């Protein structure tokens, strides 16, 4: 279901849970718990999404069109009928990229102000 093209910048700054979910979906379609596991793994357990938070975010992201439900299902043996799989939309990729760029600028600013120390010894 193609949506009218929208400006990714309107969704910024992106809530951190949503950014983590988008990142988790970049390389594969996943169901809810798999998203939670992926996020926990990639952040070495630093970011734990509770089920409520996770699906609250999924609800908003479905509405904003950054992710969509995937029709595909894996083999019946490892599938559970309650599971639904989600994938990132092209718009979602654009939003994630825009958010990361925004963060990049923020980091650059912080460095210029010497918050993190210099990149090279002076």
């Amino acid at each position: 279901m193609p949506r009218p093209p929208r400006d990714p910048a309107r969704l910024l700054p992106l809530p951190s849970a949503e950014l983590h979910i988008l990142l988790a979906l970049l390389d594969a379609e996943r169901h809810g718990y798999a998203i939670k596991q992926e996020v926990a793994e990639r952040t070495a357990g630093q970011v734990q999404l509770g089920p409520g938070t996770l699906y609250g975010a999924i609800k908003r992201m479905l509405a904003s069109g950054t992710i969509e439900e995937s029709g595909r299902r894996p083999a019946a043996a490892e599938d559970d009928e309650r599971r639904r799989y989600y994938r990132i939309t092209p718009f979602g990729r654009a939003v994630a990229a825009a958010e990361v760029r925004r963060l990049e600028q923020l980091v650059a600013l912080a460095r210029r102000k010497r918050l993190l120390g210099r990149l090279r010894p002076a």
Partner: protein
Amino acid sequence: MSRAEHGYRLLLRLLPAEFRERFGDEIAQCFHEWHQEEHRRMGMRGALRVWRFALADLVATAWREHLAVHAGRSRRADDVNPGDSMGSLIQDVRYALRTLRRSPGLVTVVVLSLALGMGANSLIYSVVNGVVFRPFRFPNAERVVLLGASYPKFGVERRFIETFSAGDYTDVERQSRTLQHAFAFDLGNRNLSGGDRPERVFTAFVWGDPMAATGTRPWLGRGFTREEWLGTAERVALLSHRIWLTRFGGDSSLVGRTIEVDGEPVVVAGILPPELLLVGTDLWLPMGANPSIIPRDTRQWAIGARLAPGVPLDRANAELATIARSTEQAFGRELEGYVGWRLEAAPIAQALTGEYRTAATVLLGAVGLVLLIACANIASLLLARAATRRRELAVRRALGAGRWRLTRQLLTESVILAWAGAAAGLVVAYGLIGPTLSLFPEDIREAGLHVSIDGSVLAYTFVVATLSALIVGAAPAFQATRGSEAGGLVAEGTRLSVGAGGRRLRQGFVVAELALALVLLAGAGLLGRSVARLRSVDPGFDTRDVLTMRLSLPGTKYEREKIAPFFEDLRERLVAVPGVRGVAAGTQYPPVNSFSTRVRLEGDADDGGDAIRTADITNVTTGYFDALGYTILGGRDFDSRDRETSPPVVAINVTAARRFFPGRSAIGLRIRLGEEADAAWAEVVAVVRDARNRGLGVPVEPEVFVPVRQQRAGWNNQLFLLVRASGDPAGLLPAVRRTIAELDPEQPVYMVRTLDTTLAESMSRQRISMILLGVFAAVAVALASVGVYGIMSYTVAERTHEIGIRMSLGAANGDVLRMVLRQSVVLATVGLGLGLAGALAVSRLLSSLVFGISATDPATLGGVALLLLLVATAAALVPAWRASRVSPVEAMRGVA
């Protein structure tokens, strides 16, 4: 669906309907997988972590999503559709939150007192649930039974463990149609090696399939086969889930590998499921023998089974009675124990932790009372508040709000308060579970109980909180919405009064609070005095500074005749250790004897009496009486004369001497121990003072002591080492271990304690009840005194005008003080009278817990009533003093 998921699903109702319908299943699924994974990885701790996290997450989400729904609605339409109940509910909630935010003091008081009340409830419910009502988590645990037997000839009343012979098991297994999957187990300890160090583990020896009976499956591998439990196949073992995790790191390749049990190779056939810990055993071995070869008078097994589908317990018991009668007919002549014996089944939870059942009921009742008191207090507070809000509510009614809508508004407030209190209470309960469990004796704690804030505790708390909200909210809601619209606007004006009706209701609450507090205080007082009496019982031996531990010499290494020399040798070495004042070993020691035997007297017309003579039998090394501080009243102590080859001798206690040889001196007379007809005659060489060998509150049993070198009847390779220290007994442990290692470096010790601990744990039922009831009674008294203070302050404020008039007419300060105090004394007296009636009514419940005192002891009841009267008067003092300081002029001007 797992229990956890079920509980979690209940909580999903906190979420807005639309969101829940779309995502509820997925959220629950996600929780389920997460819970399962953490539980697998980290056991109970992991599961708890998940719960803590998920609860916070859910509450936050519920909050966010409700706000989102509401924001969405306000954007869509400026006015909420009046017929839309969801919309008006949100409005109620928002309104309630706004109102409550305006009175932070009230909210704090209410939430804190509810946190106390609810916390106590959640705590006791989770402990009682885990220890008494549902200690076992296998499916339909109430249909899994243990068989109990009573042997009137032995004076044994309904015992479950170490009770049956192998033949009894075969009878039940073959004949019963009402029981399925009958199994039998004997208990013991085995040295387990393979892993990092040898360890002594609690072991069950099994016939039959307990997993089938409990409806569980092995976590890994398989259960025992018939050939294995009959001993015709290679030796195998099952390990408990917890020992598999802690000792073998949860390594799944363990199944099929060989480990060593008492130095012999055994193949691990499987891992037991985590929920199946048969009375706390970590190692299961097949019995490895055919029951038919074991004599009928060897009674050391417990029998369990599952009720056949559709069979109620009493039908199974009727059938068991028939089986018992046919056994009696077949064997009663040669084995007298079977004469008049009874056989009955009880649900396994009742059989194993049944002794705590009364205490559990009492405590559940007690926390219920605490919560009721808290509720009465809060209701009284809210009632006062409702009075101040009458005007507001009247305005709303005048503007068209229905009475139902206003009531719902007020109830919404109390529900929010109650849930906040419940949440705080859960935190309190969570923090107190550990300390509470530490009150229980070790065998209960280590039996693999499942005590935690789980789904059922959450559900319970949720229900209790909602009920409390209704109790607390009903009266104020009713009071505040009563009467005509105009009445509230016109008549109330600026006066802050709920009128006579409201005051009487509040006084009623205070009376109820005092009554309930008295019931609790009476219970705590009775138990306190019982424990004090138990403590003052003379145990008959010296319990101070004695270190105790158990050693089991493996039969493969120590033949029967090597056991006594080992312990005598160890004794001689230990006596030389600095700080040791006395050493001995014995098969048991007071106050927890468990071995007894049959006694026959020389010159007795054999066994004419109704009951067989029995006595506790204790095999002891030399120095036993000295180490435990027994007084030898006549005759001589055992010494080096009493050898394997010398004529058999025994010592007996005073109770045995009186019962067996009334009116005679027992010294020099002869007795015979055990069932065998050709047992040797043993001469009584000493009579020792009675020691409480079956518990402090229990009459002393006759006891016979046999030198360990001469042990014949019931020889034993497991002895307790008893070391009396000249200072701190625990400090001796390293030296004792070193000395044992000098004799045999591979010999483990276990059950290391002190005699004082054992003695304290023998009173644990009373002690736990006393401590918890004491704490609850204290909370109750505190709450009730706050209640008295509240009502008296309120009354004084309301009567300021009247007091002013009285004083201007000549009443002195003292008169006013007395008047107010008199009123509180009247209230207190009514409350205490009702409370005394209540205490008498529940005294029957307590009678099995009290010791040495009647459950209706007048001194205790009178004492606590007096105490409560003093507390109530003290609570009224401040308001009374304030009343006596009223300035007549101010009073009459201010309120006019």
